[in-house]
Structures are given as C-alpha cells and as structure tokens.
C-alpha cells in the first residue's frame, strides 16, 4: 500500500512518457536531489569530500559508462582504466592549453575525445565477442597506459612523468587545484553526474537502448529483425567511453589533483568498475550508483572497524578487505546475479503489498 502504481492517471502522452512516470518515484528522486543540492553543500567538510562523496560521484560516472557497455549492450570490457586515463590526459592537455576554458567544457570535451578512442578499440567487437573481446579491451588497457608513460608530449615533458592539475574555474569559482573549496568540487561533480545519469536513463529507455539490449540478448536474432550490430555496438562503445572518459577527467582533475598512469589507471581500476557494475546490477542505472556506493563505502567502513575498532595493522585489514570483496562478488553472482538493484525491485514489490502478505 505504501508504493502504488494504481490511481496515478495521465492525461497526455508527454506525462505518460516522462522519465519517472510514477508520482512516488518522482517525489523520491526530487527529494534525494534536493538533499544533495541544498543540504549537503552546507555541511560538507574535507573528510567527507575526499574519502566518501567525491570518489562516489566519480566512480558512479565510470560505473554508468561500463554499465551501458556491459550491462545494456553485453560487451565485456576490461579496458575501463585505460579509457579513464585517456579522459584524464585529455583534460590535462585541455587545461594547460586553454586556461580560460570552463571546466564543464573541459570535462565534456575529454569525454568526447575518449569516445573517439573508444570507437577505435570497439571496432574488434564487430567480429569477436565474449572473452575474446575482453582480451581485445585488455590490449587497450595496457597499450594506453604504456603510451601515457612513454610519450612525453602527454605529460608536457615534466621530469617526474606525473601530471598535476592546475587551478581552473567554473564561473569564477575554483574547482581544481589544492585551493578549491569542498562544496565547489562536490557540486561540480554532482551536476555532471546528475545530468548525465538523466541522459543515460533516457538513452536506455529509447530506441538506442533497446537496440543495445537486443544485441545483448541475442545478437544474431537482433540482426535478423533489423538492428544494425555495427551501429549498436559502436554507439555503445562510444557512449560508454564518453562517460568513462568524463569520470577519468573528474578523477584526475577534481579528485586526485595529480596522477601517474600505472598507479591511477591500472588494471585493478578496470576490475573495480566491473565489480561495481556486478554488485550494483547489470543493466540498471540505479545499480551503477548502488554498486559504486557499496564498493566505495565498504572499504572505508572495513578500515574504520578493523584498524580503528580492533586496532589491527593496516596491511592485515587490506588483505581481509580483498578476501571480503572477492567473496562478496562470488556471493552476489551465486545468490543474486542481478545485484543490489534487484533487492530494490524486491523491496518495491513488498511495499506494494504491505501490510498484506500476498
């Protein structure tokens, strides 16, 4: 009785087709957004910004991107770290070359550049699939990271081989560099994530998303009913890389401030994003957020309990964390392959019937 679809009447097609057709969903989303935009910025401090909120937003963006490719289009990719590196280095070059540029423009342009690279590495997906494609994307991962290590032009010939973000602004407020205030970096990332989550949600509901899902479910059958695998797969690669590139740019410019390719964009980052998508739920926008939140908050929580609570040494806690995360991935795949998003669906089902059992 708490969650009802019944009685929510629409009088126009536009109302029927809107992003959240149910009144309850809409209120809920507006409530969360109002809290995130109007309450959090006033109470944010450095700890919450650096260890919880910024990583959550940045990795949510990456998880959204991978979910489009793997969850909606069914193409497994292990090159996420490499594509994030492309976004990061693109944003670095843009920030250095055009100091006056608005950071929103920088991040979105980095995303577009990554999309081009993504299309290039997505080309093999037209001939191969499954594990074979996973290996092809591994080639992207290792080759791109090597490229950013070895070609000095990318890091502007700096002696350390690192890149570090100079201070850049949005409408006069600094969002990158050490002096950027917490609320500004938080709001900057939040705006990007909210806008592009909305775009992703509507993309997946539309014609393009349906063609991706058709390819995922059975590519040959999809081709026979007239879905072009070329367009569907390459558009999925492009849009997924666009999101991942933006998250890479945000990770480097706003969150880390300086980066070194093998450390910040290694293969373990590709797996981290893949885990977020699995735990959150393959083929679900909400799942991307849940998965990112889980895998960002869980280690923070574990560390606080084990190092802070029990007084164990930090390396022991790190090993236990690996054991728990690996175990959880297996548990999720055995018990609930559809991830946390499925739990949310089950909860809604329960709320619909409550207080009656059937």
């Amino acid at each position: 009785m708490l969650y009802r679809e019944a009685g929510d009447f629409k009088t126009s097609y536009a109302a029927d087709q809107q992003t959240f057709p149910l009144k309850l969903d809409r209120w809920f989303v507006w409530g969360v957004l109002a809290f995130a935009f109007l309450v959090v910025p006033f109470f944010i401090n450095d700890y919450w910004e650096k260890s919880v909120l910024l990583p959550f937003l940045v990795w949510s963006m990456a998880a959204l991107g991978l979910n489009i490719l793997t969850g909606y289009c069914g193409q497994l990719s292990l090159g996420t770290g490499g594509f994030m590196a492309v976004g990061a280095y693109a944003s670095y070059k843009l920030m250095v070359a055009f100091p006056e540029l608005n950071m929103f423009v920088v991040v979105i342009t980095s995303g577009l550049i990554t999309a081009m690279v993504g299309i290039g590495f997505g080309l093999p997906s037209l001939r191969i699939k499954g594990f074979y494609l996973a290996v092809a994307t591994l080639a992207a991962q290792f080759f791109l990271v090597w490229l950013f290590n070895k070609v000095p032009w990318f890091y502007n010939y700096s002696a350390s081989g690192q890149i570090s973000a100079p201070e850049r602004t949005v409408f006069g407020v600094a969002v990158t560099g050490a002096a950027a205030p917490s609320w500004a970096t938080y709001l900057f990332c939040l705006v990007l994530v909210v806008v592009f989550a909305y775009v992703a949600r509507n993309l997946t509901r539309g014609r393009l998303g349906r063609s991706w899902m058709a390819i995922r479910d059975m590519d040959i059958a999809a081709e026979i009913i007239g879905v072009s695998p070329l367009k569907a797969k390459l558009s999925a690669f492009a849009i997924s890389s666009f999101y991942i590139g933006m998250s890479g740019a945000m990770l480097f410019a706003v969150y880390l401030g300086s980066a070194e390719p093998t450390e910040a964009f290694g293969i373990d980052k590709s797996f981290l994003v893949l885990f977020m998508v699995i735990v959150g739920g393959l083929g679900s926008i909400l799942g991307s957020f849940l998965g990112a939140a889980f895998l960002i908050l869980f280690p923070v929580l574990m560390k606080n309990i084990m190092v802070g609570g029990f007084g164990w040494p930090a390396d022991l806690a790190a090993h236990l964390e690996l054991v728990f995360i690996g175990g959880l991935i297996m548990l999720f795949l055995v018990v609930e392959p559809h991830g946390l998003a499925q739990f949310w669906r089950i909860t809604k089902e329960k709320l619909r019937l409550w207080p009656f059992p059937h």
Partner: protein
Amino acid sequence: MSPDFLNVIEVILNGLMAGIMYSLVALGFVLIFKASGIFNYAQGVMALFAALTLVGFQTGQVPFAHLINATFGTDVHHWGSGMNTFLAILCTMAVMILFAWLLERIVLRHMVNQAPIILFMTTIGLAYFMEGFGDLMWGADIKNMDVGLPSGGSFWLEDVTKGWASEGSEYYGMYIDVLDVWAAGIAILLVISLTLFSQYTKTGRALRAVADDHQAAMTVGISLRSIWIIVWSIAGFVALVAGIMWGSKSGVQFSLSLIALKALPVLILGGFTSIPGAIIGGLIIGIGEKLFEYSLGGMIGGATENWFAYVLALAFLMFRPQGLFGEKIIERV
C-alpha cells in the same frame, strides 16, 4: 658468424624459454575451459597461492600468523625448521585438492547453467579472494623459493658460442638461464603426461566426454561433480608447477598473478580448446615480444613487452577469431 646474428639467435632462444613459461600458465586455462567451459581468470593467482603455500611449508611458517597475533596478542611465526622439499610439494598438492573440493561445493555447484560471462566474472572474484587469502595466510612479503633447481647462466654454452663468432669480433657468448632450460624440460614432460592421461585413462576419457557434452556425459553415468573436482585439482597441479618455475625465477610475489593476464593472448593465438595450441601460442608470444623489443623497442621507448602480446592477439583476432588450432565457432539462432 657475426655477433649481430648470434645476438638475434640469443634473443630468439630466450623468447622461446619465456614462451614456455607462458604456456605453462595457459595450459591450466585450457584444461579447465575444455572440461567445464569456465574461463578461469584465477589461474595466475592459483599459481601464486601454490607457490606461497609451498614456501610456507618449506620454511615452516605458521599459517595466519599475522591474524592470530593481531587477535590474541601472541607472537607466533614458525612451528619448526620446516619440511623438506618433496614433502612440502606433496602437502601443497593436498591443499590445492582441498581447495578444488571446497570450490566445487561452495561456488561452482550453484553456477551450473549460468552464462559463460557470469562464470568468468565469478573467477575474477575468486582471484581477488585467493589473493587476499594467500596474503593473509602467509604474509605479503616477497619470498625466495628454492626447490633445488639449478639456476644462473651456463658457462659451457657461453664458451661454445664464443667459438662460433668470427675472429676478432667482440662477442662474449650467449647467456641462457639453466633454470629456463629446466622449465622447458618440465613443461614438455607435463604436456606429454597430460596428453597421455586424457587419451588413455578412464578418467581422462570421462573428462573429454564432459567437455564434449555435459548432458550426454551425465546420461552415461559420469558424475559431473567429481569430474569438476578432478579438473580443478589438475589445474591446481599445473598452477603449482608454474608457481615453482616462476617463483624460482623471480621470487614469490604479487606480480606472479599478472602472468595470468599474459596467458590470455597466448590462448587467443592458440585457441581456447587446444593443448598443443597453448604451447605454440606461448612460444609465438614469447619469441615475438622479445624480438619486437630487441628490434623496435629501443626506438619507441622500450618496455613494449607490457602490451605487445595483447596487440598481437588483437591483430590476430581480426583474421582468425578461433585461434590457430581452435574449433570453428558456428552459431545458430
């Protein structure tokens, strides 16, 4: 012969040896893939885990010493002077079999009929789990492994090859690690024995039957579960051999698990279902990356070994997606 030519031969020989090491890991992949259709990403971590366990038994470490000390405030680390190598290898094998059994009971049993990609991701989870578990059990520090295999350069070979070079040229002979030669010998033995096992024993025939068709194998009375335990145990054994070889060569450390990733392009080249393919793919990758680094690597910044294998595999996929010896993939709606 000119020194340049001899150098190229040396590079090729070293590539051959490195290739054999890749093949050893790739072999474990192929075994599991053939028998259960699972692409086991954790093979490299299994090699690491086996090597860690072996060193732990050899030196007589107390398992989970770190955790015990942290929980109870004790200070245990060793329970004696350790085992001799042979006993330690036997015990490690027992641990790997126990692990295979547990894995089947707890995880794989519930994963029958899942999509291959889900199974693949499960093994990624398994890889993380085992990595953490191995570190927790034996500690994460880099360990030396010594199982009595000879290592170092061969003076005999250096002397012989020095004689090949033309008079007056500055050439000091080839450097080839004896350990690599041993690894090559052991790998060849392993392949021969595995082939004999799968061709001529009853269990081997059952393995091939399961690989062909799960349902048909079950209808003639082959227990899928025991076959899976056997397959994972054999994969554990191959992991142990690979772990010993890599461990003696470069120490037991985390980078050992990354060689698993190198085995992926090897498999693409050789085909996922072919044991000889794994060997030949390994050799091609080994020689290819060494030659590429020797001839072109210097010009474009070096360290090309990190990605050459993957890019080679990628190029190869364009022309022959099923690999050199793989079965042709035919799909129906």
